């Protein structure tokens, strides 16, 4: 399906950039005029993946996160969030609800579960020592289909 727009954003892995990452993806998705609920779901999923890169990928020691968003002619939004941190040893275990390697940081282990709930598809590619790439897609409604509720 034809790509109609895209962006690539590189940010340092600072926790204060979590909200910035959400705003940028939401502003980009808003060009389709989706519902407020869809925008909130995308924002939440982005927040989960970016936070994971900061906390788990880079162990809160900084590094860079690359976010790539693509819109296609069928109104599908694809969000790719990439870090070059420690990577994930056991992907299947990582995606289980309530599983976390950092209970000491009060992590709930629900990050991947939230991403899966709020997006249409979530795929994770990771190599220990090399980093993690989370790819999520979601089909958004457009204004004609009953959007017009957002104001970004």
């Amino acid at each position, binding site marked *: 399906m034809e790509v109609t727009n895209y962006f690539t954003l590189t940010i340092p892995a600072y*926790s*204060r950039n*979590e909200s910035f990452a*959400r705003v940028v993806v939401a502003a980009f998705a808003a060009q389709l005029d989706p519902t407020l609920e869809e925008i909130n779901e995308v924002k939440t999923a982005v*927040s989960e993946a970016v936070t994971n890169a900061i906390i788990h990928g880079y162990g809160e020691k900084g590094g860079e996160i690359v976010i790539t968003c693509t819109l296609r002619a069928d109104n599908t939004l694809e969000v790719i969030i990439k870090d070059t941190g420690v990577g994930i040893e056991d992907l299947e275990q990582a995606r289980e609800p309530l599983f976390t390697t950092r209970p000491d940081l009060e992590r*709930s282990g629900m990050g991947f*579960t939230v991403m899966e709930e709020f997006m249409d598809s979530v795929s994770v590619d990771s190599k220990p020592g090399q980093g993690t790439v989370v790819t999520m897609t979601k089909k958004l409604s457009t204004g004609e289909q009953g959007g017009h509720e957002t104001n970004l």
Partner: protein
Amino acid sequence: MKITKQQSGDILVVGVSGELDHHSSALLKSEIGAELDKGGVRHIILDLRELTFMDSSGLGVLLGRYKELGKWQGKMLAFGLQPVVEKMFRLTGLNQLIPVHPDLASCYKALGV
């Protein structure tokens, strides 16, 4: 994110407004922690009317405080959830630990006040 605190008897009402994510959750943890350290708080009521965003990091910090209250059988209640926050409570089962009430009066009532 902005936090307001108000205590009456052994009940602490915590108002959280704005966006509760990993970045802001540290502040919420320390703000509530400071009150608990003083020793006079038994239950917590969360006023979430102005909370516009919460992700699983917010969930983690609320769960953490919930567990602390458990040490002395204290309860945590919430009211005024916006749809997007309500969804996170339901999806993650948090509403089974932190009961959601329609308003402040109903929270007080549930605590027997």
